[in-house]
C-alpha cells in the first residue's frame, strides 16, 4: 500500500507541472531553433505582462504536421514563404488584424504584397535571404558572376552542390534562362541533363555540412543560402559570397497566426513587437540574416548596408524570384528527375 501512495504522490506532483494553476496572459510561439534573440521575451513581458512560451521545429514539414495535429497549441509560427502559401490554401492561418500591428509599416515595401500572400492578409516577413555561391578567394581568381562557373572544368572535384531539389534545379533553370517556378517539363528535362553533365565535377551534394567544410577549405565553390555564407565568412576571411547575374532565389521566413490560435490578440501584440525597429535590429544582429525591417536597417547603419551578402543591391534582388508552391503532379516530375541526377554515373 505504501508503494501505491508513492505512485499517487508522483501523479499529483506531475499533474501540478502539467496544469499550471495561474491565469497569466501568455503567447505560445513556434519557431526555428536559434532563430531569435530570446532576451527580447523578457522585455516583452515587462512591457505587456504577456509571458512568451517558446517551442521549436527544425523543418517546415515538421512544423506543418504539428500545426495540423495540435490545434490551439501555437499562437505565432514562422513558416517559409512556400509554406505560407500552402497553409493559406489549407485554411490553417488566421487573418492578421493590421490595426493591431502598426509597426508593420517598417517592413520594406518590396517585401510586401508578395506572390505567396498577395495582400499580406496572413503573414508579415520576419527574415529573408538569397541563394548564391560561396567561394574561396585563394582558389578562385576570376569574378564569380554567373552560375556557369559551376560547370567550369577548372573546378572539377572542387564544387559542393546543395542536396535540395528546388534550390539546385532552380539555379540550373536560372542559368538556362528559365523561371525557377517553370511548369514546362521540357525546361525541367533540359535542367536535368545539365545537372547530369555537371555531376563529374561535383565533389559532394550536401546541405548542413557545407558551411563548416568551406571554412576548412575543402572546396573552391559551394552553393549555399546567404545565412550559411555569412556564418562561414565570419570564420574564414578568404571566403566570399556572390549572387550570380542570371538571378537566383529570394526566400522569406514569415510570421503567421494559426487559425486555431487561442491568444490571437497577444499574438498580434507580439508580432507588432517583432516589427519594432529596435527589436528587429536585435534579432537581426543575433542571427545575422537579412532583415525585412527598413527602420531597423537604418539603425544598423553601414555594418549592414555595406555588406553585400546580407544586403544585396536592388539590381540583384530584381533578378531573383520567390519560390511558388509546386502542385503534387509537378513534384512527381521533379522527384523522378532529381533521382536521375543523384544516381547518374
Amino acid at each position: 500500500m505504501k508503494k501505491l501512495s508513492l505512485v499517487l504522490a508522483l501523479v499529483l506532483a506531475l499533474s501540478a507541472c502539467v496544469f499550471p494553476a495561474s491565469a497569466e496572459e501568455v503567447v505560445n510561439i513556434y519557431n526555428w531553433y536559434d532563430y531569435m534573440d530570446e532576451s527580447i521575451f523578457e522585455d516583452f513581458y515587462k512591457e505587456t505582462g504577456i509571458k512568451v512560451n517558446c517551442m521549436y521545429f527544425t523543418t517546415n514539414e515538421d512544423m506543418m504536421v504539428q500545426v495540423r495535429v495540435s490545434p490551439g497549441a501555437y499562437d505565432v509560427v514562422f513558416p517559409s514563404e512556400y509554406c505560407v502559401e500552402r497553409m493559406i490554401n489549407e485554411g490553417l492561418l488566421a487573418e492578421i488584424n493590421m490595426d493591431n500591428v502598426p509597426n508593420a509599416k517598417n517592413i520594406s515595401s518590396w517585401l510586401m504584397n508578395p506572390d505567396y500572400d498577395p495582400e499580406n492578409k496572413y503573414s508579415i516577413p520576419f527574415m529573408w535571404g538569397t541563394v548564391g555561391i560561396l567561394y574561396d578567394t585563394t582558389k578562385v581568381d576570376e569574378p564569380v558572376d554567373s552560375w556557369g562557373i559551376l560547370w567550369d572544368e577548372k573546378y572539377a572535384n572542387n564544387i559542393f552542390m546543395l542536396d535540395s531539389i528546388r534550390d539546385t534545379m532552380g539555379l540550373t533553370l536560372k542559368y538556362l534562362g528559365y523561371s525557377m517556378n517553370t511548369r514546362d517539363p521540357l525546361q525541367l528535362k533540359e535542367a536535368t541533363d545539365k545537372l547530369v553533365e555537371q555531376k563529374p565535377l561535383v565533389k559532394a551534394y550536401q546541405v548542413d555540412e557545407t558551411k563548416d567544410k568551406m571554412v576548412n577549405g575543402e572546396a573552391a565553390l559551394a552553393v549555399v543560402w546567404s545565412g550559411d555564407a555569412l556564418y562561414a565568412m565570419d570564420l574564414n576571411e578568404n571566403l566570399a559570397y556572390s549572387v550570380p547575374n542570371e538571378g537566383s532565389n529570394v526566400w522569406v521566413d514569415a510570421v503567421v497566426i494559426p487559425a486555431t490560435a487561442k491568444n490571437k490578440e497577444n499574438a498580434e501584440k507580439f508580432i507588432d513587437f517583432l516589427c519594432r525597429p529596435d527589436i528587429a535590429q536585435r534579432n537581426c544582429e543575433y542571427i545575422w540574416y537579412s532583415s525585412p525591417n527598413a527602420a531597423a536597417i537604418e539603425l544598423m547603419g553601414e555594418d549592414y548596408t555595406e555588406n553585400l551578402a546580407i544586403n544585396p543591391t536592388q539590381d540583384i534582388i530584381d533578378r531573383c524570384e520567390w519560390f511558388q508552391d509546386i502542385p503534387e503532379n509537378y513534384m512527381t516530375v521533379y522527384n523522378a528527375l532529381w533521382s536521375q541526377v543523384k544516381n547518374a554515373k
Partner: protein
Amino acid sequence: MNNLQVPAWGIWVMLAGLMVFIVLLVVYFKRNHGLKRPIFASPYTLWMVVFTIVPCLLIGYYAFTDINGAFTLDNFKNFWDSNYDMNKELIAMGFNPADMGFSRGTVNVDTLVYSLWMAFLCTVICLILGYPAAHIMADREFKLGPTLVILFVIPMWMNFLLRTIAWMSLLEDNGLINSLLEWLGFGKVQLMYNSGAVLLGMVYNYLPFMVFPIYNVLNKMDYKLSEAAMDLGCDKWKTFYKVTLPLSLPGVVSGITMVFMPAVTTFFIPRMLGGGNTEMFGDLIERTFLTANNWNVGSALSMIMMVLILLSLGLLRKVDPEGEGGSMI
C-alpha cells in the same frame, strides 16, 4: 515544461496505463504467490504488436494502395521503372514522354544492385578481417583476449552517426590523415567522396557483428576436441580445417547474415562519406519517404527490401537452426 511536446491528456493516459499495469502485477502476485511467465511476457508482446507487427501491416497497406487508398500495383511498377509515375503525369499533361527522351528509368533497380554489391564486398571484407580476430580473441593461450573483446565493444556504445562523422574529420582533404601525409612530404590524396570511403565506413560499423558471433562459437567450443586432433597426429593447420573451422560454421553464417542485412539497408554513410554522389537503397527509401513525401512507393521499396532480408533469414535458419551464433548480440 514549456517544451513539452506531449499533450496533457497523453501524460494522464500513460500514467493510467502504468497504474493498471502495477495493479495487475500486484493482483497476480497475491493470487499465485510466485513468478509466472505469461504476464511478464505481456509487455514485450504488446511492444511487438505495437511497434513491429502494426508498422509492418501499415507498410503492406501503403505498398498496395495509391494516395486515395485504392488497391494498386503501381508502386511496384515504380520500383521496376523509376519514371513510371512521372511518365503517367506527363501523359496527363499532354506530353509524350517518349518524344522527350524518357523511357524506362533504371534508377531504383540499379541502386538495389549497387547496394547488394556493396553489402557483398562489405561482408567478404568483414569475414576476412573478422575471422582471424575472433580466433585470436578466443584463443585460450592468448592472455589479452578479454581486453580485445572490450576494445571491440566500447566503440559500439557510441552512436554510429557520431562514429561516422568522426571518420569524416579523418578522411577529409584537409583532415587528419591528409595533414599528416602533407607534413611527411607526400601529396594529398582524396580519400573521401567516393565508394571506397563508403565501403570503409560500412566495414568499420559492421565488423563487430561479424566478430562476435564467431568469437561466441569458438569460445564455447570444447578445446579438448582440438587437443584430441593433435594427439591423433594432425598438425595445426589440419586441426584448424578439420575441427575448428567446421565447428565454427554456425557462427560464420550468423555473422554473414548479421553483417549483410544492415549493410544492404545502409543509409547516411553514403551521404556523409560518399558525399551523396551515389545513393544506396536505404537512402533511396529515406528520400522517397521524406523528400518526395511518397509513402506508397517508399513502402513498396521497403517491402522489396524486407522480402530480401526474410529470404536471407530463411537461409540462416537452414544452416544454423539453433541460432547459436547470434546469441551474444
